[in-house]
């Protein structure tokens, strides 16, 4: 047993791609005992998604799989077959949590929907994290991260230019958001299982989590009461300026100077140009109304300096301008390195590879990746052996 914060919590993951694997990673990285169950031969589909070293596809060398499956044990089990489902039942009998992200019709067809599982394992907390959830008309739909994100209202409201498509961030934003939500509500259900009187289904829709807590939180009260709502602008903030991303010598900076002291700070950082002291530019709303005039003037300055020169000069003057770090600059920043934000793991196929550290730090039981993602079926002997099952016989049965 680990000495991590969640030591003693036993989790079975029946997940592929991003959402359920990241949810289970949060449990695993903080010390829970997580066994990931993959289909024999093909494994988790993210094994085929890369990125691969040198772009040479190899299911044991997927960077995405490596990132999402730290600290887990990996077994294979063919849940499409009766014999495989019997093995899964053995695993679930000893578990506290099942984390899964298959679409509801698929699991129903296999008798692996919540009602069927709960009938055999009432103590189990089942965390389902899917694009649309287990109920409602779209629960029958096919869907991926992209569909979920754009169903949340977030993109229409907050990202992209009018007349052009609404945008998602260039990552699996809905899957990550749903995974974090699922881990939180799921852990609460485990933590309070006695208080609640047993296991239960924790049904997370990635789309709904964002629609509610992000888009809804800011907009739904006004939309319901007044029948009015806003859309994306493509320029940052519409009611205050400067509040946008601007180009600079070596990339981009997030330029924010809304309060009076921040505007004065920006002016000092820019060497107090005369135009910035003009009366009309002394509040954020009138600056926003004159955005077309002032943005080019600020850009003239940013384009002559690097992102770090701009960030350092502005921050020193109390103005919250920040560099838009590339993924490389963010991860390699000394701040991240000094905080242990990068961890090197030894992987049998990839060798020595770095990944991101723990999302939050617990001084007494730190958390974060310790062991690399499993090879396909790497822990079959260990996990099934401990249950007294004969791996060779299971293979002969087509169970694993």
């Amino acid at each position, binding site marked *: 047993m680990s000495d991590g*914060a969640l030591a003693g919590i036993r989790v079975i993951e029946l997940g592929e791609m991003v959402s359920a694997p990241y949810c289970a990673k949060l449990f695993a990285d903080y010390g829970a005992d997580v066994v990931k169950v993959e289909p024999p031969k093909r494994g988790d589909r993210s094994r085929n998604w890369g*990125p*691969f*070293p040198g*772009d040479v596809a190899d299911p044991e060398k997927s960077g995405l799989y490596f*990132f999402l499956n730290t600290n887990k044990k990996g077994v294979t089990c063919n849940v499409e077959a009766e014999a495989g489902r019997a093995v899964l039942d053995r695993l679930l009998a000893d578990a506290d949590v099942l984390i899964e992200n298959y679409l509801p019709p698929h699991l129903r067809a296999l008798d692996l929907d*919540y009602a069927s599982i*709960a009938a055999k394992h009432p103590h189990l907390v089942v965390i389902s994290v899917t694009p649309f959830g*287990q109920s*409602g008309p779209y629960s029958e739909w096919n869907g991926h991260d*992209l*569909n979920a994100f*754009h169903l949340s209202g977030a993109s229409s*409201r907050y*990202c992209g230019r009018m007349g052009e498509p*609404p*945008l998602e*961030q*260039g990552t*699996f*934003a809905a899957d990550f*958001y749903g995974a974090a*939500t*699922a881990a*939180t509500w799921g852990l*609460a259900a485990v933590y*309070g299982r006695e208080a*609640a*009187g047993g296991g239960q*289904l*924790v*049904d997370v829709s990635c789309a709904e*989590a964002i*629609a*509610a*807590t992000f888009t*809804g939180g800011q907009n*739904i009260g*006004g939309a319901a009461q*007044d029948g009015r709502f*806003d859309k994306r602008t493509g320029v940052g903030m519409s009611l205050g300026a400067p509040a*946008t*991303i601007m180009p600079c010598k070596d990339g*981009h900076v*997030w330029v924010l100077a809304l309060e009076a002291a921040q505007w004065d700070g920006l002016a000092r950082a820019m060497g107090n140009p005369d135009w910035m002291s003009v009366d009309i530019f002394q509040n954020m709303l009138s600056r926003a109304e004159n955005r077309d005039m002032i943005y080019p003037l600020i850009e003239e300055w940013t384009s002559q300096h690097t992102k770090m020169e701009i960030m350092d000069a502005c921050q020193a003057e109390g103005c*919250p301008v920040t560099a*838009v*770090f*590339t*993924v490389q600059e*963010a991860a390699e920043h000394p701040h*991240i390195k000094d*905080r242990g934000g990068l961890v090197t793991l030894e992987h049998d196929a990839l060798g020595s*590879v770095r*990944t*991101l550290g723990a999302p939050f*730090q*617990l*001084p007494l*039981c730190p958390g974060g990746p310790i062991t690399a993602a499993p090879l396909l079926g790497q822990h079959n002997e260990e996990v099934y052996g401990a249950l007294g099952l004969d791996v060779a016989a299971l293979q002969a049965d087509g169970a694993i």
Partner: protein
Amino acid sequence: MSEQLPLSNLRIANFGWVWAGPVTGQTLGFLGADVVKIESRTRIDLTRTLPPFAEGEGGPDRSLSNHACWAGNGSITLNLKKPEAVELAKEFIAGCDAVVENFGPGVMHKMGLGYDELVKVKPDIVLFSMPATGQYGALKSVRTYGMSLTSLTGVDSITGYADGPPVPFENAFADPYNGILGAFAVLTALNYRDRTGKGQHIDHSQQEAVMQMAGPAFMDYELNGRVAGPLGNRHPLAVDAPHGVFPCTGDDRWISIAVTNDDEWSALVAAMDSPAWASEAAFADASARVANIEILHEKIGAWTATHDDRVLADSLQKAGVAAAPVLNVGDLLEDPHYRARETFVEVQHPLGFKETIYGAYVKTSRTEARITPGPWMGQDNERVFKDVLGMDAARFDALVADEVIF
């Protein structure tokens, strides 16, 4: 449904302000914890003053967005500039399991409520701190807003139209994300406390927590030295295409279509009535489709542009294609899926007006989340000071008169 929510045995003092910290309290509160925000009329939280207001009438207890984002929290008012108020806060914390805050590093310490002070009144207390960039390190004092925090994570650098400049994400996506994940962090530490008897001070750097979302792009950098730029709506790992948002009939109407394998491609081609172009070699397999994504997206966009988004999504779904309408804020209230799941609910605020907030956005089969709208300032003063701390009425009234409870 069970009578008892899973976290019904927990009490939380929440010093969180603006958005992220209050959402941590909200999450624990929806799940049954007694969460009390500690705030003061000496410095009213900016988010309490944001329009639109209930029934159009302004005031710090009537902001609709504040009531949605702070739902699940209670509120007591303490003027922490006064030593008596700090003592009362500690008295309350002595009966709490965890303390939540999202100030900059050192602010709780300056108020006399740092971790070293809190353990004196509650040795196994869990203090959850969620500053922008953590409690220590070279960037610990960096000033950001939630909206721009993501610039420090790499996520902003990959947000925008493909091969164009970064496009700003126009609100603080990081705030509710960190708020919810923060509740996970609190529960990990409470799980450890229950096993070992030890509390601790959690350092939740919002930057590091959000940087995890850039993990897929980080791996391409780590393995291949490639640094990603904006991707539009394309698949983050270029696994297949089409993968994007396409125009439909009407003003600002769009549909998302995500093809991630050959089966989904075949289903889409069939749904389009198998146009001749779709059988060209340029679209024969995933790598060809990704290589020719611009022309592919143009062709699909020309086809979707004559269809209604909802009708098209329905028919594509019937064919097995992952497609969904792109909803705007107004659509959220009318959408049959969110209505069926009761994502948004009209509630009666204790001050007498009705308002719409989000409800149980996660469905739990045994317990029903407890949804209470964002509190008015000091809503729980009588309950906390008199019932929980056992203060008599005379002292309570004097502390109110002295603006200690304020």
